[in-house]
């Protein structure tokens, strides 16, 4: 199964991006003052110079109708908007005649821009243009110049909304003869224009059976350029969708790159509402856009301050990336970026959580998908055995404890096989990385370890040690397991005593201060789980947690264990109110 557009795939180009996605910055070669972020102070000295630059540009745009010229307008729209807003700030406090002296040619520039549909169609520029025109209009003109300016401004503004247009002058004249209201004319015309273009893009013939009006790839490219300034207009959404879904027989991309980038940015900023298939098509045909979307999601998740996971879950759900990931090519890219992030941050806790939450949402969508239409699981996890994937995929919540334990042993057995038999760094890493996706089972293992009345399970200890210390050699892993066993035994013993105090519990942890990073994480995990699941300890839990979380790092880890417990228990309606309540309380106090 290969979706249309996959041929446009290139190798991931992550290196080109920094995690901080920066806005496109294409400085106008001559209009230095028009660059973003220019302070007002700089407008005054060379405002005139940059005005001349823009005047030249506007004249050039008015004369040429080539694709390159159209691209050039689109490329400069953000800078032009900034420039117009700067001019507006100056004009606000001036009379027209002094404005004309200060900015000679301003009238000419604004006039030219009023006739440029790219500029007028672009919301930000239209608003800036109107602001400038409004400033130049005088309620009480006191010179012939100002009178002339007024009349010119009224004509220019009327030109912007009255019925007139390019070509077929005789047809345009007819509109005014029709004798009824023309206010909805342009709206209707736009609607009909879009219907006609969409049906052409979809390859439909017109009603009268004329098939000579097929669009060439060049036409499609031109339409995509023209959509750049208007892609956020709701009326234009159907056309943007049709463009994104359009595939020509040409091997090269027919859509303009700036169009794709602009639409992608609007999708990420929720400024445009497109169908899921259109967004999927966008990401399938343009890998840099997908990468940007993933990095954008990643950045927003990293920035989340809330201790609860619901905000992160919401952002993930809202990004549409889990839905799009039901296409294996997309999943592989997203997963590849997350893997890289995990490696570069040395297994950062937040990254681990992101992977876990993303996978959970992805699996929800995947399982909801029509069974017939969806891709096989193997396509998403080609580096792991299907049996292991299937085992981890099973929902951990809602299973009876003994079934859960049995299933865990199955998972552990498969993981240990990789560890023993096929021991290579790559295999080991792949298994560990898979486990990171389905980390809920590790939490279940910790719970099982503490709940079981029988002898401590070596398997469960191994799983926890593997999760927190994947790259250890055997010796190291055994050390981690020993430390965990010791802490477990101590706590089990304390629990058997009638009275418990925070100091005793702290003592258990204090003794293990010398452990390595992974082991410390494991021990914290165990202690928090013990606190949550031993109801008789709840009264000292708060003290105990506050003693445990003296460092930011410890606080983050404890908070993560608490939050994911709440999150897991809330899912699937398997509510354990008592534990959820204490976990939320502890989380709140952190």
């Amino acid at each position, binding site marked *: 199964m290969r979706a249309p557009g996959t041929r446009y795939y290139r190798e991931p180009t992550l290196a080109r991006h920094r995690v901080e996605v920066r806005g496109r910055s294409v400085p106008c070669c001559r209009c230095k003052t028009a660059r973003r972020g220019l302070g007002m102070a700089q407008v005054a000295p060379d405002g005139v110079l940059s005005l001349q630059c823009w005047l030249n540009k506007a004249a050039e745009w008015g004369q040429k109708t080539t694709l390159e010229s159209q691209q050039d307008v689109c490329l400069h729209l953000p800078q032009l908007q900034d420039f117009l807003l700067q001019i507006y700030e100056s004009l606000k406090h001036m009379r027209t005649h002094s404005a004309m002296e200060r900015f000679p040619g301003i009238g000419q520039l604004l006039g030219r821009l009023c006739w440029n549909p790219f500029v007028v169609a672009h919301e930000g520029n239209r608003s800036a243009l109107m602001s400038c025109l409004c400033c130049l209009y005088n*309620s009480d003109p006191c010179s012939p110049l100002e009178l002339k300016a007024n009349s010119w401004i009224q004509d220019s503004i009327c030109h912007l909304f009255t019925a007139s247009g390019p070509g077929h002058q005789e047809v345009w004249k007819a509109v005014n003869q029709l004798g*009824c209201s023309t206010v909805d004319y342009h709206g209707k*015309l736009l609607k009909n224009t879009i219907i006609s273009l969409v049906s052409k893009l979809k390859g439909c013939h017109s009603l009268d059976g004329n098939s000579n009006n097929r669009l060439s790839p060049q036409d499609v490219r031109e339409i995509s350029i023209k959509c750049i300034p208007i892609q956020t207009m709701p009326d234009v959404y159907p056309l943007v969708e049709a463009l994104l879904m359009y595939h020509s027989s040409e091997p090269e991309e027919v859509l303009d790159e700036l169009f794709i980038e602009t639409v992608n940015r609007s999708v990420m900023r929720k400024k445009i509402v497109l169908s899921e298939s259109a967004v999927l098509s966008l990401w399938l045909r343009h890998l840099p856009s997908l990468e940007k979307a993933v990095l954008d999601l990643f950045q927003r998740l990293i920035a989340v301050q809330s201790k609860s996971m619901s905000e992160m879950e919401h952002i993930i759900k809202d990004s549409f990336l889990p839905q799009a990931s039901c296409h294996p090519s997309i999943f592989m890219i997203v997963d590849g970026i997350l893997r890289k992030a995990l490696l570069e941050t040395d297994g950062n806790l937040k990254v681990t959580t992101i992977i876990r939450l993303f996978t959970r949402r992805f699996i929800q969508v995947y399982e909801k998908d029509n069974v017939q239409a969806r891709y096989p699981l193997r396509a998403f996890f080609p580096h792991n055995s299907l049996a292991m994937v299937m085992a981890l995929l099973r929902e951990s919540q809602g299973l009876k404890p003994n079934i859960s334990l049995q299933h865990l042993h199955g998972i552990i057995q498969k993981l240990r096989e990789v560890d023993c038999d096929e021991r290579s760094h790559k295999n080991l890493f792949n298994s560990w990385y898979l486990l990171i996706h389905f980390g809920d089972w590790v939490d279940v293992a910790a719970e099982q370890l503490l709940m079981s009345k029988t002898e401590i399970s070596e398997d469960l200890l191994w799983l926890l040690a593997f999760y927190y210390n994947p790259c250890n050699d055997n010796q190291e892993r055994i050390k981690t397991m020993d430390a965990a066993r010791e802490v477990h035994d101590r706590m089990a013993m304390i629990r058997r005593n009638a009275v418990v105090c925070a100091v005793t519990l702290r003592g258990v942890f204090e003794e293990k201060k010398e452990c390595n990073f992974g082991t410390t994480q494991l021990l914290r995990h165990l202690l928090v789980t013990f606190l949550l699941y031993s109801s008789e300890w709840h009264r000292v839990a708060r003290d105990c947690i506050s003693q445990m979380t003296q460092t930011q790092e410890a606080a983050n880890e404890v908070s993560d264990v608490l939050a994911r417990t709440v999150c897991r228990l809330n899912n699937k309606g398997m509510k354990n109110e008592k534990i959820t309540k204490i976990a939320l309380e502890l989380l709140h106090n952190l």
Partner: protein
Amino acid sequence: MPGKGKSMLENLDHFVEILVLSQSVAVKDWGVSRVQRALDWAAYFKHIFLRFQSNESVKVVLEDRLQLKNHQLATSTKNYKCVCFDHLEQSEDILCTNLLQNKALPRDVFKYLISRFNDGCKEEEILCGVDKIIAHKAASHLLSSSGSLQDPLDNPVVLTQAEMLRTSVEGKLKVFERSHQPACVSHVLSGIPPPAIFYLLGCVLITDDGTAIVEEEIPLPSLLLDWLLANSSTWSDFCSNLSCQTLSMLSSKYQRVRDAYLDFLINLGSSMELDLCSGTWVSISSEMTFQTLLDRFKRLSEGGEDLKEAAETTLKRLKLESGDFDVPSLCVWTDLLIGLNKS
């Protein structure tokens, strides 16, 4: 409609008058506060539209009142633009655009209106509409392509204007008695210069879905065809300007078009004489070539079995009448039949 309703209808009358005044020199005496009040009324009637758009009984009362007012104003005002219930939704936009275009508008009022472009949308949403019109115009300008005029369905400009022509004519017909309707149609259609009017009419006729405005009324296509067929030069201009596909579609839809179009083609055929030097048929009265005539017959025949039969029967009858020759290059009808059967 007692009480409240009655005063609403009176206000509606006043508002329609305001719309007329907003296009006249009378606005020279309008101040900002008066314009604000007018805009408030516009907002009120937009609200009335939204509230009653799905309430048929109220809608009919308002529509009747508007017709009455339209009728009254149409006789007294030059180039009067009829106002119907649906227009109330855009009453603010209509008022604003009327005022902005009016050269008699005091400057401070104009400045007041355009200053709303910036902050109006957020606060009072007055000029949101005009800003939207500007955006729509620029966007449709951007996306417009030079579509063919002969195939009106392929041209959004023609398609849109045809929709407006229909609305405009239907609106006017409601105001006039049945006996005055043909004159009213003729007045509107004659006002639009050829050939634009032909493209628009072709489009209105093709897209008509057969739903008459009111029962017992004459259907709109019938009135339009009356106008088109009343004058043979109008009809032949219509046929010459539209593509053979469009005419074929119209022929399959309307019996009257089929008959008149066949007559047009036969007239063309009759005007053809064999040019002995080149061995081709040449029209003495028209630019049309034999091949174009044949193409038109072909395209007509492709429009359906009944069209094909009508075309062939006519050609066979004409062939019979002119001597029933089977040999080519003796009779234009024989040659057309041979050409038709070849494909």
